């Protein structure tokens, strides 16, 4: 379990809390960088776009959806695995989960937020976004519950709420640990955050069942979220999008890219926060096996999708299929197949699976592939629907590319802030996995 020797309870506290309590110039520089990138690449172009209109992006009359929505699905997808994986592993009682789940759940939260940002960026009149919430108003107007976008609003807000509660609940004993290890303002704050946690048996008991309850609750929620995101597309009758396989396809893809994302984040935690002792080979191995499984399912669904398009035999589907496989964006499609179907097969080799560096590369490639997948879904189908005369073409503008890059900086910023406020590794659960201490030690 622990590659570099088992730490003592005190060492766990110290290792984890030191990340929060000791802040060096490197951290500030990093935070400064991510915040500047987010400001320059994300917010400035967005503000410009708010002034001139969504025309600042590359979308046009035949291709009304573009990279903003690709990014939206990508980040929603990335959000999976975090909370979902954590919950599944919790109820299946997998001990290797304990070191990674806090960061994974944080990932869920932050990618959901980033995804929500893309909804805002996408909207033509974001200043009226509240109309998509069922807020009672004097006009007596309600949102349209038949719209998959409304399902989205519901699903995402619910998932965001549930995930937030889930991560918060699991952190309460750790907040107490922070409280105990700090003084002054921080102590007072964490007294509030920890709800006065004292660690009584009753408290542990309550936390235990509440946590399990939420874990069970969150699993169908996570599955539904990406199913619903897929319905934004599948409920249209657009050739290439109107596929019943879309919900499982999206869910599988989401967990796939989410898992790969976890590998990336784990690597960074290990590397930069010196968590080598807690995040070890066993995690990498398990995540690797999960990735292979997901990749195989993903490939299978892709083959199915191609098959049903071809088998359906309508001019609409065949055209869409042909464009996807051989059209302008075909190189991106084949890049996606390479990165998501073939590259993960390398993980079958133990030598690769056990190498942090190689796994980092693979995990990043998978997510590049998955980002491409989302782009292909949006960019190749809806500009070429039923009437050939109205066929169009979409290419992202530099504003979109910039915002795409900026989103990663937003995510990183949120994460950097997170590690200063919440223990990035669950202290008490890691301790649960420690072998009982020998008295003579």
């Amino acid at each position, binding site marked *: 379990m622990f590659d570099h020797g088992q730490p003592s309870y005190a060492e766990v506290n110290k290792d984890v809390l030191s990340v929060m309590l000791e802040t060096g110039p490197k951290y500030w520089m990093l935070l400064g960088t991510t915040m500047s990138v987010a400001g320059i690449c994300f917010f400035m172009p967005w503000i410009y776009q708010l002034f*001139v*209109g*969504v*025309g600042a992006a590359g*979308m*046009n*009359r*035949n*291709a*009304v*959806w573009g990279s903003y929505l690709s990014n939206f699905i990508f980040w929603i997808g990335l959000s999976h695995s975090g909370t979902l994986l954590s919950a599944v592993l919790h109820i299946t009682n997998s001990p290797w989960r304990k070191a990674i789940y806090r960061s994974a759940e944080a990932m869920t939260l932050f990618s959901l937020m980033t995804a929500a940002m893309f909804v805002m960026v*996408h*909207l*033509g*009149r*974001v200043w*009226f*976004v509240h*109309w*998509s919430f069922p807020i009672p108003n004097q006009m007596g*107007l*309600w*949102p*349209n519950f*038949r*719209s*998959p*976008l*409304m399902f989205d*609003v519901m699903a995402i807000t619910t998932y965001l709420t549930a995930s937030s509660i889930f991560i918060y609940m699991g952190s309460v004993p750790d907040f107490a640990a922070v409280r105990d290890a700090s003084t002054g303002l921080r102590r007072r704050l964490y007294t509030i955050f920890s709800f006065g946690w004292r660690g009584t048996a009753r408290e542990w008991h309550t936390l235990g069942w509440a946590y399990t309850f939420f874990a069970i609750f969150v699993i169908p929620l996570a599955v539904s979220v990406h199913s619903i995101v897929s319905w*934004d597309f599948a*409920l*249209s*009758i*657009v050739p290439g999008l109107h596929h019943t396989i879309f919900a499982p396809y999206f869910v599988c893809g989401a967990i796939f890219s989410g898992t790969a994302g976890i590998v990336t984040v784990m690597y960074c935690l290990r590397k930069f926060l010196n968590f080598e002792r807690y995040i070890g080979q066993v995690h990498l191995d398990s995540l690797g096996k999960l990735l292979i499984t997901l990749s195989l399912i993903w490939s299978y669904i892709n083959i199915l999708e191609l098959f049903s398009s071809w088998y359906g035999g309508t001019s609409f589907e065949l055209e869409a299929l042909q464009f996807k496989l051989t059209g302008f964006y075909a190189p991106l499609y084949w890049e996606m197949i390479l990165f998501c179907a073939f590259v993960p097969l390398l993980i079958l080799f133990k030598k690769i699976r056990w190498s942090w560096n190689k796994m980092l590369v693979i995990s990043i490639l998978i997510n590049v592939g998955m980002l491409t997948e989302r782009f292909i879904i949006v960019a190749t189908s*809806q500009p070429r*629907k*039923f*009437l*050939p*005369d*109205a066929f*169009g*073409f979409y290419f992202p503008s530099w504003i979109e590319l910039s915002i795409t890059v900026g989103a990663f900086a937003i995510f990183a910023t949120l994460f950097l802030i997170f590690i200063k406020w919440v223990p990035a590794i669950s202290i008490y659960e890691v301790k649960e996995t420690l072998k009982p201490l020998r008295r003579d030690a």
Partner: protein
Amino acid sequence: MSTFVEKLRQYRKPGYYDKFDYHWTMTIDLDRCTGCEACMVACQAENNLPIVGEKRFAENREIKWIRIERYWEGEYPDVKMRFIPMLCQHCDDAPCETACPVFATYHNQDGLNTQIYNRCIGTRTCAVYCPYEVRYFNWFTYTWDEPLEQQLNPDVTVREKGVMEKCTFCIQRIRIAKDNAKDDDRRRVRDGEVVPACVQSCPTEALVFGNSNDPEAKVSKMMKNPRGYKVLEELNTTPSIVYLTKVHS
């Protein structure tokens, strides 16, 4: 609660949309249409469609509520050009309507697919869902070179950036006709009283508009023409526009 359930039942009942007060319908005779595009300019004039400029046109950001699609058949010398005017089909089972999260587009009691600019938040989902590609988005706030704005039709809203728009079957003309009918102490609008701008201008009289609930209306008779068909009928959107196919001789 019970009224709510009742309403829901009624709403869910198949054919809910069949019982229109008026059912505004258009027929387009492709054997008459010459592709002259008078209808396009008429619509632009009537409905305050913007002049987007060369740059925006090059980016495919034009706004044309009615457009003429052109299809070539065959190769030289036996080559033929086929025109087909394409505008919102006012589908009775409109995919665009289910898509809109805020009811900015919905079906009204006259069988129109209406578009409420004020309510639109600009998700563009409706445009993706519409198989006829007749929804046009305001990528920018367009302006008119002074004094061209003096021509703007005061009966029609000028749209701002971020809003979806499309053919309304010239709803302002329908409203005026209804008002006139009311002022005249008539309950109903007579056949031929509502003439949308495109129909009005069409120099070959390819377009006919009217209330298909009235069996005596010209449009009802045109719809019975054996050449009649609906574009992409297999998608089951139940369009309100019946095309009459071109005759081959």
